[in-house]
């Protein structure tokens, strides 16, 4: 029976555990990506591996982490003092740089110890080996992307597996930084464990289990109630990725959204087969993108847990772009295809509830990785950034300009920080005028970013929406597609494809113009 007070109390208590894990991880982490850009998530799971609370940091992690816990549970029997590690996209992971640590939590007071649940955290590591520094390569199979770690025990019975640790660190470019970040991840799980145990001491194991069940039912109940308010029907939408970086051919993502009573079926049938290039998304990405869209559309003041997804079924054909099978390359699925999955699902929702869905946002993360030898500082350098763009106009307002949208929300690197650290100079960082789609409400403008290279370097660009702009809605125009160019010292301009790797010389200028958002409503 529902206890309306206990449910609210457990919600706060579990959320507080996840948040405290996050603070611990951020404090102890070594790399700027975790410490400053906060590219990590922490979560608490029940004894069945269902997510009961998550400190929401990164949308792409939401909805995907339970699959990592499930994969660990399937792979091994977990005992007190164990910690599992996993990044294998084909066994519960998403892409290789995202490393997840899962720890079971037992009530140690009892004999035999009884399982209370799990705590887990996922962090994006700046390098996990593979073809290029930063591990975001234009790969053609997953093996090129770095070290694959299937679910294995990093810690067994409280003892660190030194051999595994050594193997891991031998396969990455920055082992000291990786070791620091992994230790921080271990510490975060320890914090979560002791907090969950303390909570069990305070309210009792049996009640903790009941309360976890109830908070899941509560989220499910709220989600069903909100789903039931949506107009029943079948809504279809499709859009494409420009190309996969290998073959210059668009890749379609299609979705059929079935809204029926208090349930939803999201069917990605009709989506292109998986591709040779790195834009393939594994199923957890598709699930995460779907979870994100439902959370936004339902305007959910609902605890983010597995209960939210119970009434929502996600079907993605195996071997397709949205449910890739080994050995497909997947590194871009996380950062680029995830954005398009959001776009198509929102496109379908726009037919169901046109009053609340905005036009498409930039639909890419504009990943730029630069590496080489810095002659001034006499050391190698590797730099990675994502660039914001235009947000789609909504039914009631213009789109916001120059902002991170949908599946990412990471900060930029300050220009002054960048120029202190790397042989680069930012020549311009500004709005890209008139790049938002036209309409009653115009789409947000993209960004124009110009980087001057002060020494030769290798550049990898992973971007999309370079041939087709983000769609407008209700008669609104599309946003301008993005554009990548290299301006050479002699003034010649070289147009660059959306996904490419190139060598540049000192004095070259890389000009990235990010897409504008779609417009909303026709211009009278």
């Amino acid at each position, binding site marked *: 029976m529902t206890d309306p007070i206990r*449910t609210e109390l457990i919600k706060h208590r579990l959320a507080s555990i996840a948040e405290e894990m996050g603070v611990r991880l951020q404090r102890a982490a070594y790399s700027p990506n975790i410490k400053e850009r906060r590219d990590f998530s922490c979560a608490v799971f029940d004894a069945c591996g269902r997510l009961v609370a998550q400190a929401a940091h990164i949308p792409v992690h939401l909805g995907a982490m339970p699959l990592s816990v499930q994969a660990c549970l399937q792979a091994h029997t977990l005992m007190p003092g164990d910690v599992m590690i996993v990044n294998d996209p084909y066994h519960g992971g998403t892409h290789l740089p995202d490393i997840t640590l899962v720890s079971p939590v037992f009530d140690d007071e009892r004999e035999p110890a009884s399982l209370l649940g799990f705590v887990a955290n996922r962090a994006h590591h700046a390098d996990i080996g593979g073809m290029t520094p930063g591990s975001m390569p234009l790969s053609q199979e997953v093996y090129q992307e770095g070290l694959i770690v299937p679910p294995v025990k990093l810690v067994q019975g409280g003892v660190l597996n030194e051999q595994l640790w050594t193997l891991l660190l031998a396969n990455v470019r920055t082992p000291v930084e990786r070791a620091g970040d992994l230790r921080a991840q271990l*510490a975060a799980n320890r914090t979560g464990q002791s907090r969950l145990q303390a909570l069990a001491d305070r309210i009792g194991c049996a009640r903790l289990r009941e309360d976890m069940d109830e908070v899941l039912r*509560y989220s499910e109940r709220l989600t069903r109630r909100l789903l039931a308010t949506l107009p029943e029907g079948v809504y279809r939408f499709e859009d494409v990725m420009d190309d996969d970086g290998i073959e210059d051919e668009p890749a379609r993502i299609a979705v059929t959204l079935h809204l029926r009573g208090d349930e939803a079926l999201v069917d990605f049938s009709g989506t292109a087969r998986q591709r040779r290039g790195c834009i393939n998304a594994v199923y957890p990405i598709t699930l995460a993108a779907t979870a994100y869209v439902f959370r*936004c559309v339902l305007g959910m003041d*609902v605890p983010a847990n597995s209960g939210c997804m119970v009434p929502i079924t996600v079907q993605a054909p195996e071997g397709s772009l949205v449910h890739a099978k080994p050995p497909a390359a997947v590194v871009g699925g996380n950062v680029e295809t995830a954005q398009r999955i959001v776009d198509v699902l929102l496109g379908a929702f726009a037919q169901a509830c046109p009053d609340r869905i905005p036009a498409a946002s930039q639909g890419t993360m504009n990943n730029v990785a630069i590496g080489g030898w810095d002659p001034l500082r006499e050391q190698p350098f590797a730099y990675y950034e994502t660039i914001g763009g235009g947000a789609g106009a909504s039914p009631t307002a213009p789109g916001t300009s120059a902002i991170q949208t949908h599946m990412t929300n990471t900060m*930029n690197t300050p220009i002054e920080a960048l120029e202190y650290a790397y042989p680069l100079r*930012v020549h311009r960082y500004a709005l890209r005028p008139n790049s938002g789609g036209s309409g009653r409400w115009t789409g947000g403008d993209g960004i124009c970013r110009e980087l001057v290279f002060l020494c030769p370097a290798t550049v990898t660009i992973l971007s999309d929406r370079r041939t087709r702009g983000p769609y407008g809605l209700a008669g609104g125009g599309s946003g301008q597609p993005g554009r990548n160019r290299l301006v050479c010292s002699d003034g010649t301009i070289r147009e660059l494809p959306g996904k490419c790797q190139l060598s540049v010389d000192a004095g070259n200028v890389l000009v990235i113009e990010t897409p504008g958002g779609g417009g909303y409503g026709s211009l009278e």
Partner: protein
Amino acid sequence: MTPYPADERFRIGIDIGGTFTDFVFYRETENCIRTFKVLSTPSNPAEGVVAGMAMLPQVERATLVHGSTVATNALLERKGAKTAFLTTAGFRDLLLIGRQTRIDMYDLVARRAQPLVPPELCYEITERLDHRGQVITPLNESELDGIIDSLRQQAVEAVAVVLLFSFVNPIHEQAVAQRLREAGWFVTASHEVLPEFREYERASTTVVNAYVSPILNRYLADLDARLPIENFHILQSNGGRMSVVQARTQGVRSIMSGPAGGVVGARYVASQAGYEHLVTFDMGGTSTDVSLVWDSIPVTTETVVDGLPIRVPVIDLHTIGSGGGSVAWVDAGGVLRVGPQSAGAQPGPVCYGQGGLHPTVTDANVVLGRVPADGFLGGTMSLDRTSADAAIRRLGEALGLSSSSGLSIEQVTAQGVLDIVNVQMERALRVMTVERGYDPRDCVLVSFGGAGGVHAAELARHLRIPTVLIPPYAATLSALGMLAADVRWDDVQTIMLPGETAFVELERRAKPLIERGWMVLREQGIDMSRGHVWCELDIRYAGQSFELAVPFTAAFREEFDRIHEARYGYCQPSAPVDIVNLRVRAVGVQEPPPIAKREPASSPDPSSALWTRRPVVFETVVESVPHYRGAALRPGHRLVGPAVVVHDDTTILVGPSDRATVDPVGNLLIEVGTHD
């Protein structure tokens, strides 16, 4: 430390609140502190100050410290000066782009805080320096003519000038600022307010300063004209005071002046009672502020006010949107929720009888007898308990609750409301203690908000904080803080040098900053014997983006590793480091006035202060609980819980397993029992 000069013998602290302007004054000859309040005059706060000052003698010889919310309100209400922004060519949209993040990740419409300067008032000028401060593109001064024309047409009042790498070499910013000042504008150049790297945060801070300073300036000029006070100070956001002369061009430093006063006051009261580690808990009607004082006033340079980063040192507070006025409601999933909506002061909780229909935390306290309906505001305002009961009962019915264990449905529901608000408060307290690596068991909880007294002991119990201190001056604590505030000046300069840099070079770089620190102190009448100026270094491992403050000694490298180990649990003595910033702190230590001892009680028995006995609900039992008049309690009185202490402005609950004593100056010290 030598005594203060003559003008420090009479000190006045003033804190302007929404309803009252609090005055606290101290006269050395009387050796006691007095307080009084006058009605605030929101349309022109100076009126209330002048009215209050008229009630004091000898004002021309006083030192006056003023907590000013003028700058804060100008910012929050977006009523600052019409401000323009001028930056390096190519970066006109710097304020708009910010860090390119959105506020709420799950909002379908991506939003960010609106910049204070609209796009049409953002200008750029041709010039560029590199990270070493070398000129790559010279300043094109002729472009200023057109900009000046445009600024005139737009009737701009203030200009923020933020050029890239100006903190390394301010030559271009100085030239631009000078031209604009000659042309008559209030100008803030970024190197003057925050010579620190990270252009967006520096720009945001500079713009806030340009936006609020003219408003603060007008207010201070008005006050100055009407009150001939020579020694006039403003409380800064860092908990220290600064002279009015500085405040006029550095308004951004006073943005958090109000809350800073409360923390300084709490620290002062706790320290006089012998506690140096405290958690401050200021639970008001709509929000609650928590901070941790571990020996010194905690400051941060990471503050964001209303979405705008402000990088000058600001008191480190955690604020949550829950308080006594938070509304309890049933959500779509049938679960009891508390807040974030608040009934505010108008209409207020149901029990205020001012038309409030939604039950609040205060109503729950009234239902359970924890706040007596007829003791509110010293009995001048009686609370409508019947309406509170009815509103909470309706809430319970909507939740499907029923009476149980001898408790009525409204009592069961009210208990739930309090459990939920307490779990929210507990989270806030954990953020500032456990999550920062501090053990609450080593702290005293200082509660001074109007709504906090009934919750403090229970929260302390959950966090295992052994003692709660509730000062008798709760309502005027902020003004009291003004009397205890040190003169303080924080300065920073980004230097970005490698860890191998010789210490003599660092000393050479520090010299002008130290001299400026002394100059600031001297301007405020503080000489070498009473002042203290020292440096710190912000250091990080190369490649990281978080710096730690390290003492300024030749062994800074070892110190950095030691501090890193203590803070983050590991260190890397062989890894290269960056010396990012040089910080200078100048402090003129204020001898805080002693708080006068009160006449002690003749015996520990508090029955002389007993007002009444009433039933109060604890968990599942209803007990008859003695209620004491706070004003009648005397030092030495001992209370055995359960007990309720009723003050004019707050009610304090001593739980069934708690004990409480009144200390010599009138603080109520609750020794927290372990029983849940």
